[in-house]
């Protein structure tokens, strides 16, 4: 053993060098993440065992012993799932009763959603500044495509159905409930008593009742209250109540975010001479919304799944179409297949939203990198 010098003076400053590589290969990753201690190792082994129990059975049922073709359920003879109906019913599941020759309009609206979302997802993208105008115009374009007019064949909303109806209601609700939620959250913290009372009353009343009752209100009561000769489309009414309901939740989520902003931020903004709306728009809300992202996305996901509740007022969303297929003698008893199929669609959309929010949080993190 050599004695350590207890004093020293270094002649030269050390030069800069790059950090060591971060990845240590699959084995290293597994050792660090799956087998770092006995508890972790135990969890890994139990998880592997559970996967081994479940996955082969599910794959068997869904694919290997499944039937994919046939005229009705009697054509399905093997022990697994019966997917024979998919071929016949897929259009119904996706588009409801939308005229078959007009389905391209729904598809086009869906395709255009991608460039409309792109500048919101990737703000450093070239041309994002111009595409943002397209994002703003998208709701109008999509509405026009879906209902028609101006030369396009008109399609009444009563023909809307299937997953397309879920997406229409869900997307409209999402796009509208965020700004309304922000307004309600600001109103609830406003110095003006009228604003505050209105916001609190709105939030508490809408949060305090089940969405189903609101849907009944939309379907049955609203038309009675509307002035004579003034009618509002049922789907529009549904969007209104779904938006109002989600806005109440959204307001509370955003209020939570607002409370996370230190007083000093308001003071710095005011001292600079920023007006109320400038302060909110430039300084406070960007930070508050960022903290609220998990809650906001949670509300979005909840809203989207709640669109299946329109079943209670007789709209044919994807779930209702599934239900009616399952009670059709031709496909009687295929509820597992139908619900698995439907769940997959919801999962895809909700999971994408969740991934997007994770990406957004990472991008907005200004503390390092």
């Amino acid at each position, binding site marked *: 053993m050599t004695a350590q010098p207890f004093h020293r003076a270094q002649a030269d400053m050390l030069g800069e060098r790059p950090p060591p590589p971060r990845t240590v290969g699959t084995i290293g990753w597994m050792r660090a993440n799956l087998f770092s201690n006995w508890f972790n190792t135990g969890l890994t082994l139990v998880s592997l065992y559970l996967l081994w129990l479940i996955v082969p059975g599910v794959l068997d049922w869904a694919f290997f012993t499944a039937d994919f073709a046939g005229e009705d359920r009697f054509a399905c003879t093997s022990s697994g799932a019966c997917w024979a109906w998919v071929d016949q019913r897929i259009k119904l599941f996706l588009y409801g009763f939308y005229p078959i020759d007009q389905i391209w309009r729904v598809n086009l609206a869906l395709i255009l959603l991608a460039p409309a979302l792109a500048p919101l997802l990737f703000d450093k993208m070239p041309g994002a500044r111009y595409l943002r105008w397209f994002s703003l115009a998208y709701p109008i374009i999509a509405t026009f495509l879906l209902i028609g007019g101006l030369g396009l064949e008109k399609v009444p909303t009563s023909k809307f159905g299937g997953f397309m109806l879920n997406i229409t209601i869900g997307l409209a609700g999402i796009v509208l409930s965020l700004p309304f939620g922000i307004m309600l959250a600001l109103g609830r913290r406003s110095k003006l008593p009228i604003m505050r009372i209105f916001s609190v009353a709105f939030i508490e009343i809408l949060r305090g009742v089940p969405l189903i009752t609101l849907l009944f209100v939309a379907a049955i009561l609203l038309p009675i209250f509307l002035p004579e000769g003034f009618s509002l489309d049922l789907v529009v009414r549904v969007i209104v109540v779904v938006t109002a309901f989600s806005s109440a939740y959204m307001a509370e989520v955003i209020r939570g975010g607002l409370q996370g902003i*230190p007083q*000093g*931020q308001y*003071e*710095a*903004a*005011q*001292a*600079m*001479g*920023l007006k109320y709306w*400038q302060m909110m728009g*430039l*300084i406070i809300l*960007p*930070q508050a919304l*960022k903290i609220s992202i998990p809650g906001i996305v949670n509300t979005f996901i909840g809203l989207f799944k709640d669109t299946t509740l329109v079943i209670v007022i007789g709209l044919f969303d994807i779930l209702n179409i599934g239900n009616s297929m399952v009670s059709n003698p031709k496909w009687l008893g295929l509820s597992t297949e139908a619900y698995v199929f439907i769940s997959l669609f919801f999962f895809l959309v909700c999971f994408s939203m969740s991934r997007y929010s994770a990406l957004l949080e990472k991008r*907005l993190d*200004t*503390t*390092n990198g």
Partner: protein
Amino acid sequence: MSAAETPPARGKGEPIIEITGLNKWFGSFHVLRDINLSVGRQERIVICGPSGSGKSTLIRCINRLEEHQEGTIIVDGVELTHDLKNIDAVRREVGIVFQQFNLFPHLTALENCMIGPTWVRKMPKKDAEQLAMEYLERVKIPEQAHKYPGQLSGGQQQRVAIARALCMRPNIMLFDEPTSALDPEMIKEVLDVMVDLAETGMTMLVVSHEMAFAAQVADQMIFMDAGQIIEQNTPDEFFNNPQSDRTKLFLSQILEH
């Protein structure tokens, strides 16, 4: 204390801030008691006093971050009342630097500096950016312009905060303990910037316990206790010949370490 040369008398006869008979309460707590203070153009005043004596409250009244109940505050000819126009006018003239920096964490140093000129002064973006860079250079951190506050050291953040306030081209700068949240090795870099600023002729009100700094730049020292101005004098007299017992006690405590 070192007997710095008496600075040339500034701003005589032309007060830019006039506070008369100022009283303020937080609820029933009488936090500012009958404050009278006149600050001349280009004058530098350092305010000290024990914690809770109302120093922050006093300077925050000057740009109306706190509302006073009695007395008048006139800043550059504009009286602070409930009139929002007056408040806006005063805030455009007065910059403030906080103990906790209060930078906007979601904006880069440059964007922090640009936001006032762009939105309050309605300057074109190009000009605002140029102005912001100019002031970041003056506080000696142009190379940090594109970093976010969370990526800067405390001293760098406070210098960005100073640059941000200066970008509004204020006539008066308020500092509320600008160095007391900083580690010792960063205090100097911030004080250096403030000394530079003092040399440009800025009117400054500084709440600070950095006595060497005070001795160097102050035209007037103010000692506050229990919401009152107990003593006001030139730094020379203030440090070498304090009048009140409370000032003596405070100075002995603060100069001990």
